[in-house]
Each structure stands twice: as structure tokens, then as C-alpha cells.
């Protein structure tokens, strides 16, 4: 509706992400904004609290680059490959300098939902007879007011900034996603500031033609960044596949602090943005990630009512 929120990644991160912020780059295996993570590294943000259900390779890179003081999470790994080595170096044995605040997946989702809904807590039937409420005293029992027992509660999570990646948005930030939706809607509504990164900027009429597909309305969005391939090495349903080789390659690199630093120089600090990154990956590698064919959704008719 009102003015365009389209910005470069540099400007969006520059204006909206501040030292000490709680930052959630969300997207469950799908639509992970590596582009935003790299820009945060490039701008040398410090003391961030990084929230994410699955702090995978992107948070391993961010921790390696020294932007984070704490993680809030529910599953810590390089999915399908193994551990996150940079994070392990500061969470195991003698060096446990990275603070951890740990939930289960549903606990994290419920935290974002409570944040989005402005609730002081969200109840859930997890954590019974586990050590998680001991490890994290923010997981608390709560008695039902109907006399039928006790469940657990988690507190709201309200990030200062949430970053999500999507297939498309209009200039006002009305955002549509298909495929896995993760907890992006909840994480965006819960946040004070929201950056949406998209593969494609579309006209408002494309959004309004299929309003049920909208997951985040422009009213909660502060910046729209157009960054094709911005989710690589994660994937974008219908656009490109997961680059499994990247996840596997990260394992030996991240085991070696010097190799990790070199990787950050080569792929983050020495590049000026996502276009350069995509170019460095090379057309051939990107082409191999295209879907093997189309899988069209079909059309539904909303009908005109005058």
C-alpha cells in the first residue's frame, strides 16, 4: 500500500540489526537466509543473542565469526552430516563461553507463538520427566485452572529482529511462501523488526490474487531485500534444491579454525554481497540445484463479487 520497503541487504542489516540484539534467522531446513547471516558477519555485529530452532551451518559460521554471545535453540547440528564444529569449540569441555538456552522444537515454536500473540506464556505437554526443565529453569510447570493436572509452560520469545527468506513479496512486504512454513509466521509477528529476503519481488496484484498464500503481511515488515539464491546452501521450494555438498564440505572446514577463518574471508568478508557469492559459486553448480521438473499447484478461483 504505502511506500516501498525495498532495500539492499547492506542497508537493511545496517539499519535494523544492532549490537546486542536478539536475532532470529528462521526457516526450518527450508528458506534459511544465509545471505542475511553473511551480511551480519560482514558488518561485524557483536554480542548477538542468536535464536533459531536449528542453529545449523549459518549459525556455526556466525559463531565462528564472533558475532554471538548466546544461542537459544532446540536442535544443534549440521542436518544429515553431524555436529557444528565452531559451536562445539565454545560449548564443550574447558571453553563453554557461548551461552546456551535450550528447548525442544515445540517449545521453541510455542515461544515464538506466545511472542506473536503477546501472551505471558504458552502451555504444552512436553518436558514431563525429562532433565530439560532442570537444565533450563525458564521451562516451568503450570497447573490447569480446571483441576486436571499440570503441564509445562515456556515464556514468549520476542526477537529484536527476525529475518525470513521467501519465494516472493511485494514492495510493501506482503510475503508468500509455499512448501515448509516452519515457524516463520510466528517468529515474524513476535519480532520488533522484520527483514524479508525474497527470490522475487512481485506486484501487489500477484499477492492479492491468492491471499490465503500470504504468511506475513507488510505491516510487520521493515525491509524487503531482493536476493536471488539468498538461501543457498539451503533450498527454496520450486526454485532450487538443497546443496548437500556444501553441508558436507563444511564439516572438515569447520573442524579447523584456520580453515574456517579462511572460508569466512573467501566467501564473506572479501565479497560485497550475494550476487558476488552466487557468481563465485558458479553457474554450473547453481544449475545443478534446479528442480528436475515443474510441479504446478493448479489454480483455484476466488470469484469476483461486485
Amino acid at each position: 500500500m504505502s511506500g516501498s520497503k525495498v532495500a539492499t541487504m547492506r542497508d537493511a542489516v545496517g539499519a535494523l540489526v544492532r549490537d546486542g540484539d536478539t536475532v532470529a534467522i528462521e526457516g526450518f531446513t527450508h528458506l534459511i537466509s544465509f545471505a542475511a547471516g553473511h551480511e551480519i558477519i560482514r558488518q561485524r555485529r557483536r554480542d548477538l543473542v542468536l535464536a533459531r530452532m536449528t542453529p545449523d551451518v549459518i549459525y556455526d559460521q556466525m559463531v565462528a565469526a564472533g558475532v554471538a554471545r548466546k544461542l537459544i535453540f532446540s536442535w544443534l547440528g549440521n542436518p544429515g552430516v553431524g555436529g557444528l564444529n565452531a559451536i562445539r569449540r565454545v560449548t564443550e569441555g574447558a571453553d563453554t563461553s557461548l551461552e546456551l538456552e535450550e528447548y525442544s522444537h515445540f517449545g521453541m515454536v510455542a515461544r515464538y507463538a506466545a511472542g506473536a500473540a503477546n501472551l505471558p506464556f504458552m502451555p504444552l505437554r512436553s518436558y514431563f520427566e525429562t532433565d530439560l526443565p532442570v537444565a533450563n529453569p525458564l521451562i516451568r510447570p503450570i497447573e490447569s485452572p480446571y483441576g486436571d493436572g499440570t503441564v509445562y509452560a515456556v515464556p514468549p520469545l520476542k526477537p529484536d529482529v527476525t529475518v525470513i527468506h521467501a519465494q516472493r513479496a511485494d514492495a510493501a512486504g506482503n510475503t508468500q511462501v509455499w512448501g515448509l512454513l516452519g515457524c516463520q509466521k510466528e517468529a515474524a509477528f513476535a519480532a520488533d523488526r522484520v527483514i524479508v529476503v525474497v527470490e522475487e519481488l512481485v506486484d501487489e496484484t500477484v499477492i492479492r490474487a491468492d491471499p490465503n498464500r500470504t504468511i506475513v503481511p507488510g505491516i510487520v515488515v521493515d525491509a524487503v531485500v531482493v536476493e536471488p539464491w539468498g538461501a543457498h546452501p539451503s533450498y527454496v521450494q520450486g526454485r532450487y534444491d538443497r546443496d548437500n555438498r556444501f553441508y558436507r564440505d563444511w564439516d572438515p572446514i569447520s573442524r579447523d579454525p584456520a580453515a574456517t577463518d579462511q572460508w569466512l574471508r573467501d566467501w564473506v568478508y572479501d565479497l560485497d554481497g550475494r550476487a558476488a557469492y552466487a557468481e563465485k559459486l558458479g553457474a554450473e553448480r547453481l544449475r545443478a540445484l534446479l528442480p528436475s521438473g515443474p510441479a504446478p499447484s493448479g489454480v483455484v478461483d476466488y470469484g469476483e463479487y461486485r
Partner: protein
Amino acid sequence: MAAERPGGEGGPAGTGAAAAFSKSEMMIVAAARELAGQRVCFVGVGLPNIAVNLAKRTVAPDMELVYEAGVFGARPARLPLSIGDPTIVTGATAVTSMWELFAYYLQGGLIDVGFLGAAQIDRFGNINTTVIGDYAHPKTRLPGSGGACEIAINARQIFVIMRQSARSFVERIDFRTSPGNLGGAEKAERIRREQGWLGRGPSVVVTDLGIWHFDETGEMRLDFLHPGATLDEIRATLGWEPHISPSLAPTPVPTPEELRLIRDELDPEGMYTK
């Protein structure tokens, strides 16, 4: 019984040529077969992923696959490398937010089997996937719960697949991430009833050596021994004195078709089976 070596061998059940297979292949096949007759399975990351996908192609073609990423009724055209993969979305029955998946599908009671992996397990099926060592200063930081904690509580029954070793089958787990039969069946059943859990706890643990079900005391009991495995090997890879079924039987070996599916379709790169 086949010679004791990694990659034991044996004839397929019934007749036919003998086929060589690895311990991992036997484990995956045995786990898949346990899913016969199950209707809705929540697929965990790692080994459960390949076992469930094999079951879908063999003993349980109508089974609905649920992925915590938000997918119900997945029909993956290839083995998803991780539990979030575009191939579990395309052609699925429903794709939903994770809030709805966990709240309405899992906590709402629609899941028959939750299929988990584990780093440590005890005799009662309690699972640790959080840390080895002290929580604050761990020797090894593991991934944590993911969805396992709520799956263990809310899925009607729990299947576990993991390799057996003295480090993983322990007398006492370092951290209880996902509850099993707690300190035994009696206490576990009382607590589940009092707290209104939908889950009835673990029902099978499939390892690279055998198949364990849970007996009336809530403890694991070895019911099948894989070809090539021995009871000595079982005991050497356990932190407690195991219950062994009086009718212990050998696990039927993988069929050529099961092996073909694993090798040609599901895991051509040998990620899970090497």
C-alpha cells in the same frame, strides 16, 4: 548362522541365493519390518528416516509419513537427506506450520509411532540426545531434543533405531532428553496415567545386533539376534545384564528386494549403510 563379521551373510527368508549385507543394512531392514501394520509414523532425523522410507516401500505402503518440518502424508521421490527436504513436500497430502504440526497432529494424538534415534539409551528406553558428561561443561555437546522430547511423550508408541555400543547402551544416561519407561513399567504407567500422556512409551529398539522389545517390567528384552551377532557381543555392548527372551530367534535376513531398495533407491551413496 552366518559368520561373525561386519557384513554377515545369509540366505533370504525362505529360499533364494545368499546375499551379503552389512550390519547397518540388517538394522535398517529389521527396523522397517517392525512398522508393518502401522498407520501414522513420525519420522525422526537420521537412521529412522531411511528405515521408515524402506517400510513405506515394503511392509507399510499405506503408512502416512509425518515429518516434524510440517508435512503429513509425504511421498518422497528420493530419500530425503535431512528431515527437511523439498522432496517431502512435493506430492504430500498436507503441509502445515510447525505450530500446527506439533500442536494438532502430535500433541493432538494422531501419531501411532514416533521413530527416534539416540546417543544414549538405558534399559528402560530413556533417551539422551543432549550431552555426554556434565550439562554445564559437557564432554560432548549433542544436538539436543529437537522434537524427540515431545514425540516420546505424545506418540502412541516409540520405536528406536541405533547402533549398540558400551558407550551408548548405558546403565545410567547422562541427561534424560526423552522419557522412556522411567524407572520401570509400574512407575511409568502410573505417571503417564496421572499426567494424561498419550504415549505408552517405547516398544522396540532395533540395533545392529538384534531387536529388543519391552517386557512387562518395562525393560528391554532381546527377542531377535541378527545373523552374525552373538550374545557375547550383545553383552559387550551393553551397560547392564540384559533380559534375553527364552524364545530368542534369529532375525530373518534381508531379502534381495530390501537390499536393492536400500542400495539402488534409498541410499546409493551409502550415507547410512557404510
